[in-house]
């Protein structure tokens, strides 16, 4: 009787995988809206924990306590996230780019981390057009063949970073400021020389109470365009940097328990909207959201 209310969708998210031999993960393949298992394949979300390659001086106190034993060593930190907390991937922030470190040094640090964990690695620059353009291609070269997911790639610097990623077998994060059409534009540009099977969209995230509704609707609209309207340029997985945004809110800073809920609820709602890869900072949030799925 309810069959008549079911929809079929024309679009499908491209199959996407990253990681080196033996630790690859698969994403994509959805031909239905998020959590619409009753209408098709709705995908399985992936959770990464975020770490940084230099002292996380500006991180919330509650987080620094948890990672106090490993914060001096990105390798140990990444291992803890993967083995102790069971993250599906590690998200490495290259905060060391703010310091006087050479691109070669930064890149070899990344390689060390990638080689030390049994889950895929996501590597993220500062979002600074010039600095990222100088460092990320070198990271791509140093980690050739390790199948990283590298970002952010912006409309201002996509060429150089994407080319390096292509040459060395990595995937990229196309980052745009909260807008469906900008996401489409950047993917069209990338699609001219880069396989969209290896692109993930980051349409920027805001935390619960700080503009979550904008990220929610942008994400939902991107996924609707891809699945319902069969827009080929948007048929890529979506990534959301939840932890970073949540752990600078006053709610999280004043009360870590509330922070965990804030992070979990932000993550859950973005999953409902269509995000596939969720970046978190607190391992408890990871546990909580996972236990629900």
């Amino acid at each position: 009787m309810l069959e008549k209310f079911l929809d079929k969708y024309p679009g499908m998210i491209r199959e996407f995988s990253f990681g080196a031999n033996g630790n690859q993960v698969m994403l994509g393949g959805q031909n239905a809206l998020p959590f619409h298992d009753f209408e098709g394949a709705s995908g399985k979300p992936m959770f990464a924990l975020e770490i940084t390659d230099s002292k996380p001086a500006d991180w919330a106190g509650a987080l620094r306590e948890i990672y106090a034993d490993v914060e001096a060593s990105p390798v140990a930190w990444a291992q803890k996230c993967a083995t102790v907390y069971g993250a599906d991937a590690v998200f490495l922030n290259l905060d060391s780019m703010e310091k006087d470190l050479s691109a070669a040094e930064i890149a070899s640090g990344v390689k060390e981390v990638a080689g030390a964990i049994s889950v895929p690695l996501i590597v993220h620059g500062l979002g600074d057009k010039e600095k990222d353009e100088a460092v990320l291609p070198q990271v791509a070269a140093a980690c050739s063949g390790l199948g990283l997911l590298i970002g952010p790639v912006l409309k201002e610097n996509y060429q150089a970073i994407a080319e390096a990623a292509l040459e060395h077998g990595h995937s990229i994060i196309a980052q745009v400021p909260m807008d469906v059409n900008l996401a489409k534009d950047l993917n069209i540009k990338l699609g001219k020389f880069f396989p969209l099977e290896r692109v993930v969209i980051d349409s920027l995230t805001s935390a619960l109470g700080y503009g979550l509704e904008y990220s929610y609707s942008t994400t939902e609209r991107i996924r609707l365009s891809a699945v319902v309207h069969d827009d080929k340029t948007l048929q890529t997985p979506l990534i959301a940097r939840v932890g970073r945004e949540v752990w600078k809110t006053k709610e999280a800073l004043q009360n870590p328990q509330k922070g965990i809920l804030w992070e979990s609820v932000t993550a859950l709602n973005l999953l409902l909207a269509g995000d596939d890869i969720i970046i978190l900072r607190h391992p408890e949030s990871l546990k909580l959201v996972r236990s629900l799925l």
Partner: protein
Amino acid sequence: MPVKASDIQKLLPEGGKKNCKECGLATCFAFAMKLANTGIALEKCPYLVPESKAELEEMLMAPIKQVVLGQGSRQVVLGEEEVIYRHQKTFLHPPAFAIQLTDEEGETVWAEKIAKVSWQFERLAKVSRIDLVVLRSSSSSGDKYLELVKWVMAATDAGLILAASDAETLLAAYEVSKSRDPLVCVTAENVEAVAPRLDPNAAVCARATSLESLPGLVEKLKDAGLERLVIDPGSLKLLDLVRDQTLIRRAALQHKFRAFGYPTAFFAVDATPDLSLQVLLAAAAVAKYAGIIVVEDISEDLFQVLATLRQDIYTDPRVPPTVESKVYTFNNADQEAVVLVTTDFALTYYAVAGEAENSKQPAYLLCQDTGGLCILAAWSTGKLVPETIAEMVNKEGMAEKVKLKQLIIPGLVARIKGDLEEELPDWEITVGPKEAKDLPGFLHELKKRREGAA
């Protein structure tokens, strides 16, 4: 989906070509347009034949019925939603949050829970509360349940939801609390016994155990003359919640399936005993169309999470939230205070205001009228530029308010420093941090430097 004026016109006199103007409009089509926007009563046309009138009434009925629960200041309006995705149009009536009391818990627990019903959580100038109370019979004693009902009626004026599986217990509670217009939960097991004995205008929640069995239960209630309905497909897992609520919304809006044309309920309390997970499920239900969301209990933190989410999801997607454009003061700003600049986009303002306060340093905050744009958007559209900042500094007489004349601009618009110095030659223009969270540290440094220089 909205009704098309052309479809309405076909049912008007002479196929909508009579155009006699008696309804006060120039043509039948103009009347049809008004009807489509629910801007006029059907009765204004005196020539409608009864069959067309009935058909039009059916056509113009809201696809999801409005249901009002609770009384006075505790009134809650549900239903009338028109879209599936929030970017299409604002979700209209935010879901009501309900907390559950059971007759077995006893007075100490009741008192703790009822105290929470008077919490008021304010954010962005709006107050959120726990709206409704569910009274659940979990003992087998009808007397115990009545005791709970009477106790709660005396303790709060919030709207009530009665949930007892035994028909006699439920009806006794209904008689006792009738003056409060409770929402009565009815299931497949007790519907035959309960439905005929309720007032036709009673509010009823049809609680099915599956989406598939829900229409049958709704039909039974409608046959008993009950129309003020809330429907619950009995979802217990996240995937079921999304499926059930989505299909209900879609069936009501796109297929005009009347049995699903009512606000919905979701009992997170029945899904898991874990309170954090109940709140996560409740959070999913906020985004996914639930009208009433029931939890077993809630802490202040958890409630704040849910209330904030409800506000986020139910904001108008087309209008950015703004705060009043004026000069705000922090930490008893006086002659020694610095002057900060930001925009009236609520999210930007609250981030900056929160940190200005955290800094514990006296400060004025000039909140520029930008129509709700963030810093960069305001700058690029000419609404946060040297001229507008200088104008506000002068208009508000800031030069008389402070001795220091130190104006701090957002780090994101560092490039306007030079031009602003020309506009405000008496002021020292300083570039502040790019992110609000760095403001306390920045102000602290600034103060140290000042004191060092003095």
